[in-house]
């Protein structure tokens, strides 16, 4: 394992301290590093709270700030935060209009947020669960699909809506609708290494890729020979569009997301591949976002996310945002 670190068990804490120092104009880090919150809250606005295992930075802490989240609870690496973190975040940022909890669909996350909600029962709360990863089949009798990079799209749109005074119930509805219009799929070219584990989560041959990989390095649909970028994009967009089943001519957002070790040149090459494929399938790419935004530690590879936008959600996407990782 090669990482810029001092010791596995202090790594997260040191990194959070660096983040808080670097972005002190936007955020503050709570005692015991239980959560990151906006420096300044807007009274009367519904509080948006997310969180999850660490190792996906800038998700979620990098999305705390005006136009997006009010607080983010960082769990240990790839491990959901604990209920006390979430409860304390709710207590710190709920200014009276209630809290919307944005949770990625992993049982750990869902259960910890659920326990937190039980404990913080005197606050008004609602939950939106994100499950945008088409690599996993959807179903009601199982855990269902994972929440991956689409989380950022939902967080941005809800963040803008909350800023415009949308109420808790409406936000929950919008979040669920946005989640239903958002699909992602990923591919890994190299594994990731959890610092405390010290060795890669999986092994890939020199000419192999993992198609449909999760953001924790979970195995995906299949392991195959590394293909050309166009073929990879074709397979991912194909799966996404098949699942979304958008009508011809719909406008969409394309998010090309790096997993942590993928250079910018490759991400923009994927932008180019994906946009041509989307256009060929009759979709209009109206908005783009490119970057390593929902990562998997030091994994190489990327995910593609497509979100169908209408006039309202486009406006919310375009609304100003000022966080450590997203700004416009």
């Amino acid at each position, binding site marked *: 394992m090669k990482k810029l670190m001092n010791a596995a068990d202090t790594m997260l804490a040191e990194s959070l301290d660096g983040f808080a120092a670097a972005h002190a104009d936007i955020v503050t880090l709570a005692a015991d590093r239980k959560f990151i919150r906006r420096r300044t809250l807007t009274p009367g606005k519904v509080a948006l709270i997310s969180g999850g*295992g660490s190792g996906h930075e800038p998700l979620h802490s990098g999305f705390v700030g005006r136009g997006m989240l009010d607080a983010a609870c960082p*769990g*240990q*690496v*790839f*491990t*959901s*935060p*604990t*209920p*006390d973190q979430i409860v304390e975040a709710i207590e710190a940022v709920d200014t009276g209009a209630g809290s919307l909890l944005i949770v990625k669909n*992993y*049982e*750990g996350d869902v*259960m*910890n947020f*659920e*326990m937190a909600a039980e404990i913080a029962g005197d606050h008004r709360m609602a939950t939106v669960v994100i499950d945008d990863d088409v*690599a*996993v*089949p959807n179903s009601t*009798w*199982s*855990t269902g699909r*994972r929440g991956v990079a689409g989380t950022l799209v939902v967080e941005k749109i809800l963040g803008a809506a909350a800023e415009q005074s949308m109420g808790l119930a409406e936000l929950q509805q919008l979040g669920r609708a946005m989640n239903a219009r958002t699909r992602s799929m990923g591919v890994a070219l190299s594994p990731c290494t*959890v610092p*405390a*584990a010290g060795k890669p*989560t*999986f092994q890939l041959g020199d000419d192999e890729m993992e198609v449909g990989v*999760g953001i*924790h*390095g*979970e*195995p995906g649909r299949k392991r195959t020979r590394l293909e050309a970028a166009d073929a990879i994009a074709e397979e991912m967009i194909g799966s996404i569009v098949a699942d979304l089943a958008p009508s011809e001519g719909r406008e969409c957002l394309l998010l090309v997301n790096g997993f942590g070790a993928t250079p910018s040149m490759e991400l923009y090459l994927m932008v180019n591949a994906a946009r041509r494929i989307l256009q060929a399938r009759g979709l209009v790419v109206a908005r783009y976002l490119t970057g390593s935004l929902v990562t998997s530690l030091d994994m190489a590879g990327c995910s593609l996310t497509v979100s169908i936008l209408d006039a309202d959600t486009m406006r919310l996407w375009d609304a100003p945002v000022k966080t450590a990782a997203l700004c416009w």
Partner: protein
Amino acid sequence: MTPEQLHRVIVTVADAVIDHADELTALDQAIGDGDHGLNMKRGFDAVRADAALLAAKPLPEALGAIGLQLVMKIGGASGPLYGTLLMAMGKAISPDGANIAAAFAGGVAAVKARGKSQPGQKTMLDVLVPIEAALSAGAPDLPHRLPAIAQAAAEATVPMEATRGRASFLGARSIGHMDPGACSSALITAAVCRALGD
């Protein structure tokens, strides 16, 4: 149960989890996200550090406190599940521990509710439910038989296809590996029995 006995149980269980953390992590690397051992170790390190304080409490409070400790330290799926198991047991158990079978059944019911899960889905429930059954059936030599029952139940998860937990994301590719949570449950069962048998 005397405070000494409880202390022995706590320390034995914690040591067993800590000693086998790498094994649990390796299982989780195969069909999960490779942190089950790390998570469990973090929880049981904290429990072990507080062992004296925890053992001094009456059994119901002790179980509840251990459960809360696990919830607040483990995170992930196993934190709420093991925490819920112990907190629910703590609520149901009598101070002398005589109604252990009923209390454990209450704990398992709480786990099912928390996890929206059932046995057969390749999770810790595939070990917890057979233990619950054995406890309900009762038998004088139970502490000697339970570890084998738990171990066999954990092994029985190998051919299963997961439909709950992270391994469910793998579909058929989850077949052929032991579920990490089932393994930790068997491990803890063996440690409890060992501590009580000594």
